[in-house]
């Protein structure tokens, strides 16, 4: 039953990613050339609504479906290296034209070469796990 709920949320997310063109390599390229408001408006409006509602939920201590407090897990404070990881991620985002959500959306849409990107992303995650203790954090 819960599984069906998660499947529905994911399906909705996948449809939005495709229809909004956040899953289009072209849109990512256009964004990094500052030639359209599209992606900035997309992320900006998601964020605008996101900030307002999350702050409201926190102020009113709204509880979730299980009557637990709604919490967004704080990211660790090891700040400086987040930037390095971020830059590496950004390089890949622009090259493959897809981040981890849209990758799977494109697989569903039938663009099979995206499977190479997904394989690469799994390998990248694995390399991180192997090197984690040797990397500065």
């Amino acid at each position: 039953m819960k599984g069906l709920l998660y499947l529905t949320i994911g399906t909705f997310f996948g449809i939005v990613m495709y229809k909004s063109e956040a899953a289009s390599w072209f849109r990512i390229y256009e964004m990094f050339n500052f030639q359209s408001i599209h992606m900035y408006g997309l992320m900006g409006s998601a964020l605008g609504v996101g900030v307002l509602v999350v702050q409201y939920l926190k102020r009113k201590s709204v509880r979730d479906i299980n009557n637990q407090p709604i919490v967004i897990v704080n990211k660790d404070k090891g700040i400086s290296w987040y930037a390095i990881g971020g830059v590496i991620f950004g390089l890949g985002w622009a090259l493959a034209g897809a981040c981890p959500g849209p990758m799977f959306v494109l697989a569903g849409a039938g663009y099979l070469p995206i499977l190479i990107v997904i394989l690469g992303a799994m390998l990248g995650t694995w390399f991180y796990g192997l090197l984690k203790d040797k990397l500065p954090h």
Partner: protein
Amino acid sequence: MEWITAPWPWFVSGPLIALTMFTLLYVGKNFGMSSNLRTLCTICGADKTSDFFRFDWKSQRWNLIVMLGAILGGFLASHFLSDNQIPELNSKTIEMLHDSGFQSAGTAYVPSELFGDQAFTSPKTIIILLIGGLLVGFGARYAGGCTSGHSISGLSNLQLPSLIATIGFFIGGLLMVHLIFPLIF
């Protein structure tokens, strides 16, 4: 029905992305797609190679189901909710892409030069896609999250690490498009 099959404007889609995050929060979960890559590694046996992958992956089953939903959503959106959707790019962007060898710009959802079936027989394309994925996977874990976990969820919660990571995402993207693309395309 035409408003469904037409491309969705950003001011509709953006709030719908936020709605995805709220729905997950409401059912007691956090929005973050790249965690699934770690879970997939564990399922493939990476837990035998590093502590990083030794966790109870079943606790992440819900997120894998969200991921399956995203695949299904991509299928439904492209096959039933679109009439051959092609992004209406800036004409300058299309011109630049044509000059760099992307003849499909303006006629396809994603470049057929990278995502057409001939990709599997072009070593250059395979390497580009594989390296793109590698950087995304490695970077997402090093940064502690991706566009969903940091740029949407973390920033909505006004977290400084998420702001730093998001600035990093953009610096990386700008470096790739402006410094590296001229060398490879």
